[in-house]
C-alpha cells in the first residue's frame, strides 16, 4: 500500500515538474497589476497549434511567440482590448476562449434561454392538464369515497 502511494506521489510530482517546464519563461513586470493582467490574458487566449490548451499551458513555438508579443504589448502600455484586437485581427475570434456575444455566436448564447422557455411552457401545459383531470372524478367513485368516509366516522364514534 505504501509502495502504491509512493508511486502515485512520484507520478504527480513529475507531472507538476512538467508544467513548470512549460512555463520556463521569466518575464518581469514593473507593477503587480501588469503581471496579473498578463496571467489572466494567458488563460483567456487559445494556442492555435494545440487547440485545447491556453497560451499559458502550451509549449508550442507559436505560443511562445504570442506570449512574448502579449508581454511586449503590456510593457509598452497597451490595454487588454488593444491586445485582444491585435490578436483577433490576425488569428480570428478563435483565439479567444471566452468570446463576447456577437451576431455569429448569438444562436449559441440564446439557445439555452429558448430551451428554458420551451421547458417552462411544456411544464405549465402539463400542470394545467393535471388540474383539469382532477375535476372529472366519476360520480360512482365519488359515492364510494363518501360512503367510506361515512363508515369510518361511524366506526370512530363507536370506539
Amino acid at each position: 500500500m505504501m509502495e502504491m502511494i509512493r508511486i502515485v506521489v512520484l507520478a504527480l510530482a513529475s507531472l507538476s515538474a512538467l508544467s513548470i517546464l512549460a512555463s520556463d519563461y521569466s518575464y518581469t513586470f514593473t507593477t503587480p497589476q501588469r503581471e496579473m493582467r498578463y496571467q489572466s490574458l494567458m488563460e483567456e487566449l487559445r494556442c492555435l497549434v494545440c487547440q485545447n490548451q491556453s497560451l499559458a499551458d502550451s509549449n508550442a513555438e507559436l505560443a511562445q511567440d504570442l506570449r512574448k508579443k502579449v508581454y511586449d504589448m503590456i510593457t509598452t502600455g497597451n490595454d487588454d482590448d488593444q491586445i485582444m484586437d491585435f490578436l483577433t485581427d490576425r488569428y480570428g475570434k478563435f483565439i479567444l476562449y471566452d468570446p463576447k456575444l456577437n451576431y455569429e455566436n448569438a444562436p449559441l448564447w440564446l439557445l439555452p434561454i429558448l430551451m428554458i422557455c420551451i421547458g417552462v411552457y411544456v411544464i405549465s401545459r402539463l400542470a394545467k392538464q393535471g388540474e383539469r383531470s382532477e375535476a372529472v372524478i366519476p360520480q360512482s367513485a365519488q359515492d364510494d369515497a363518501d360512503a367510506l368516509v361515512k363508515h369510518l366516522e361511524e366506526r370512530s364514534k363507536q370506539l
Partner: protein
Amino acid sequence: MKAQPIIPIAIFILLVALFGIGLTKDPRLIPSPLIGKPLPEFELSLLHHPEDIVEKHDLIGEYMLLNVWASWCVACAEEHSLIVDLAKQKIIKIVGINYKDKSADALRWLEEKGDPYDSTLVDFDGELGMDLGVYGVPETFLIDPKGQVLYKHVGPLTLEVIENNLLTFTRPEQ
C-alpha cells in the same frame, strides 16, 4: 394535449444531421480574418541577397502566391514539387517566405529541392508570420494586384487546391 411522438423524433433527427455535418468539418481549419483585407506591411531581407530589403509595395501589382515555408517543416517538403511544377508553367508569380528558419539551411534546402520562388523573403523572427496569422506552416496566400488577400490555404498544397482555389481567382473573366 396528447403526447406527440413526432416532435421529439424530428428534433432528434435534426440534431443527428447537425452533428453529422459537424463531424465532416476539420476543426484545425481556422477561418482567416485576413481574407478581403490588405496584405500587412513588411520590410524583410531577401534570402539570396541579405543586404537587399523588400517592402510590400515592391511586390504587389500582379496576382501572386505567398508561400510560407521552412526547411524544418516536413509538410513543406511534401508540397514543394507541386510548387516547382507550378513555377515552370509561369502562370503566377510565387514569392516564398522563409519562416523562422536558419538561412543556411533554407538555401541548402532550395538547392536540393529546386527553387520555384521569384524571390524569397526572410522572416527570421516570425513577425510577418504573426501579422499574417500563420499558425502552421506551410501556408499559402493568394494576393490580388491591389495587394488584397483573396484566399488562404493552411497545410500542404494539393493539385486540387491549386486548380480550384488559387488559380480560379486569377482568371475571373472566363
